[in-house]
């Protein structure tokens, strides 16, 4: 009896201790790091002699001189991102390990731990919501008003515009919260050889020419003219990226005018605007110019297929271009062309930031400093943007592998002050989710085109209706 009691008490004690231990360890380790940090901070501040950044505690991207400041900083930071391919040793370009090795030559005491995720967009939001997230994250789709709750400001907009391009991407209240990892433009990735074999010598510049080119590929080659990547979902949502500058030649359309436009999906009659963009897809599917079974398309498989000349083209951002080149032996066959919409004789392409680095606002001062050093290094020294076939992010650089002759690049203007979240709200209310994961609506275009269940105009009418209803529900002024 006694023994049993003792046993029971010990067991309970052990269990409570076990539970308490969970809480305790994190606590003590946290206090541990903070004290360490304080010490490091002092060291960093005095030794690097950068009083402006270290001592006053206000960290600024522009004030950091790489290779001179914070060289004695010892800390460990984490980076959460979407580039799973860069973590594989098979990657044809520069891998994360190689970047980190180069970074540690300059900053040997800053350890960067990288986690990548194939379902990044959703999981990153989950991390943010949990409150316990990595030191550096690729900023997912958060409301701009919430930016300062999650991320540290790199500095004010004016200063940052002198440092980087696309500074307005994650700007709110005059502060910049995100530095783009690379910048991309929107066009069509295609196989030059397939187009040649089909007898298409001039790149199409209007929707009609494009459909004619696809038809020629179907008639003259064995390749699938346009691969939709329907099954992957997000590849469908990618079509939304073309309805802004590409289809209107107006860099205020996407972020400022769209929300105020009455029936933005109507037929403007001149092969421009959103109507012309989605119509390319509808017509291609309706005319049998896409793969025969859209429901089982395979994203990983399509890269090798276009590389081998089994696919004519795919509508994807320029970020996809290096992946298609790397997927086989025919890198030279892969080309990138502007979206076939011409406005008054000019083709436009919207250039914009890819995922941007955001720094955890709740991190310790040391981690913040290390993170900012790392972001600056990635932007200015690593060559990441160039290696990934992107447009330059560093304001002083013009190096890029993309050649888009005769195309005018436009950088989307941010929303006007006070309307930063209006597009998000409209997206949510209308459920069209333009450029925000609205994959289902574009998948539906393919379904309707293939099964003939709805005409293209009926689909667009429905979208116009949703958009108008949302404008009404949110009390948005319709001025366009």
């Amino acid at each position, binding site marked *: 009896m006694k023994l049993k009691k003792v046993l029971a008490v010990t067991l309970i004690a052990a269990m409570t201790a076990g539970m308490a231990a969970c809480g305790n360890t994190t606590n003590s380790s946290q206090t541990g790091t903070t004290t360490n940090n304080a010490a490091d901070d002092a060291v960093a501040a005095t030794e690097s002699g950068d009083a402006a950044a270290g001592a006053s505690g206000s960290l600024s991207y522009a004030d950091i001189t790489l290779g001179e400041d914070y060289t004695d900083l010892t800390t460990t930071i984490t980076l959460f991102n979407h580039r799973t391919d860069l973590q594989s040793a098979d990657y044809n370009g520069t891998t994360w390990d190689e970047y980190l090795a180069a970074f540690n030559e300059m900053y040997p005491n800053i350890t960067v731990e990288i986690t990548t995720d194939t379902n990044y967009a959703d999981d990153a939001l989950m991390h943010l919501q949990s409150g316990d997230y990595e030191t550096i994250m690729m900023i997912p789709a958060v409301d701009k008003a919430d930016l300062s709750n999650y991320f540290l400001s790199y500095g004010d907009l004016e200063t940052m515009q002198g440092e980087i391009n696309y500074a307005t991407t994650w700007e709110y209240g005059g502060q910049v919260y995100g530095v783009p990892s690379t910048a991309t433009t929107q066009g069509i990735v295609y196989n030059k050889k397939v187009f040649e074999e089909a007898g298409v010598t001039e790149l199409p510049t209007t929707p009609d020419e494009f459909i004619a080119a696809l038809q020629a590929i179907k008639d003259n080659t064995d390749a699938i003219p346009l691969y939709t990547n*329907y*099954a992957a979902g997000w590849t469908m949502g990618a079509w939304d990226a073309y309805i802004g500058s590409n289809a209107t030649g107006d860099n205020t359309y996407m972020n400022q005018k769209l929300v105020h436009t009455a029936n933005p999906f109507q037929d403007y009659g001149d092969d421009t605007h959103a109507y012309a963009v989605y119509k390319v897809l509808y017509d291609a599917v309706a005319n049998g110019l896409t793969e025969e079974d859209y*429901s*089982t398309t395979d994203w990983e498989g399509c890269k090798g297929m276009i590389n081998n000349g089994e696919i004519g083209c795919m509508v994807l951002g320029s970020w996809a271009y290096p992946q298609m080149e790397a997927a086989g032996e025919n890198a030279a066959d892969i080309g990138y062309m502007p979206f076939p919409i011409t406005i008054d004789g000019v083709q436009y392409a919207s250039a914009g930031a890819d995922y941007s680095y955001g720094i955890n606002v709740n991190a310790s001062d040391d981690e913040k400093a290390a993170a900012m050093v790392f972001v600056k290094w990635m932007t200015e020294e690593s060559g990441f943007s160039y290696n990934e076939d992107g447009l330059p992010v560093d304001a002083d650089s013009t190096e890029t592998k993309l050649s888009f002759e005769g195309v005018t690049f436009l950088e989307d203007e941010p929303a006007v002050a006070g309307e930063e979240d209006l597009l998000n709200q409209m997206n949510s209310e209308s*459920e069209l989710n333009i450029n925000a994961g609205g*994959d*289902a609506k574009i*998948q539906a275009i393919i379904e309707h085109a293939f099964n003939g269940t709805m005409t293209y105009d009926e689909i667009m009418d429905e979208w116009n209706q949703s958009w108008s209803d949302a404008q009404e529900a949110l009390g948005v002024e319709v001025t366009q």
Partner: protein
Amino acid sequence: MAATVAKVKKEKKPFHFMQWAKSRKGQQVIICVAFMVIPLLLLFTFTYLPFGEMVKFSFYDMKYSTPADKREFVGWENYLDVFRRDDCFGALKLSLYYVVGALIQLALALYLATILSFKVKGGNFFKGLMFFPYLISGIAIGFIFKFFYTRGFVLDTVLQWLGFELENLPYWLRDQSINNWSLVATSVWRYFGQNMVLFIGAIMSVDAELYEAAELDGANKFQQFRYIILPSIKTIVTLNVILSITGSLSAFEQPYVITDGANGTGTYFVIMNELAHTSQKVGLASAMAVVLLLIIFACTILQKLFFKYIFRDAASEDESYKAKRARLKAEKAALRAEKAKKGVA
């Protein structure tokens, strides 16, 4: 000095408590409470508290990221929306596919369980083989079947061996008239093994002498099944039916992983997920969840009543329903009388 104070105190109140705690009754109570507190606490924290929060969300217009003070209270608006929108309840129609699938699955499981519970060569091997799919994770099954149904892949190849021409075969996931059946087949393949094992377990508990007696009376295998096995395992049959049907109302994994809910395969759960995570209409999605819960409650109660009706017939085969009631009443009365006697004594 301090020691005496402590002693005095000890002798007053805690003394009684200690005595009570040491007594058999006290021990019983303490142990009961101690054992109950931990699971109840876990249950409350991880089930009822989040559920309560979700019910609360269903009355608000909010996103996940909306701070608590900016959430807008909208009353029953979200619930009205669930009934007004045609995509919410339209998606419930898809559940009918899964309900039919669940019934096929149970019939198949019961049939195989009955066969395997008699002496069969390699019985255990087959049991293991058929139970195996249940052990694979739903996501992995999704990926397996995505390739299984792809044009010219596994299923088409096997059918071609059997003499089918590729041109005559449908596109299993593209064709909207059969793609839901393709998904349901996946679900059946995954779960029938588990149902079967449950049935076998129940059938094992049937007294073997009953079969012998039935055989002596000249009952064939089917009659043995109908009059011995089925009535003996009715509890487990009822349970499995209820679980399968509620499960088919909330089908999610197969459409989500295999088709992403596109192409007319978006079940109620998939639509709910899309609304909550893509359109960020958390309030509406929560309301949908609560409505589904009520529907599942209703279905469960209806099924309970249905089975009560069915098995009432089975139980009253040798005595009429009225006679049985009268007998039960008499028994109860006798019991009461006995209790009363004890009370007097």
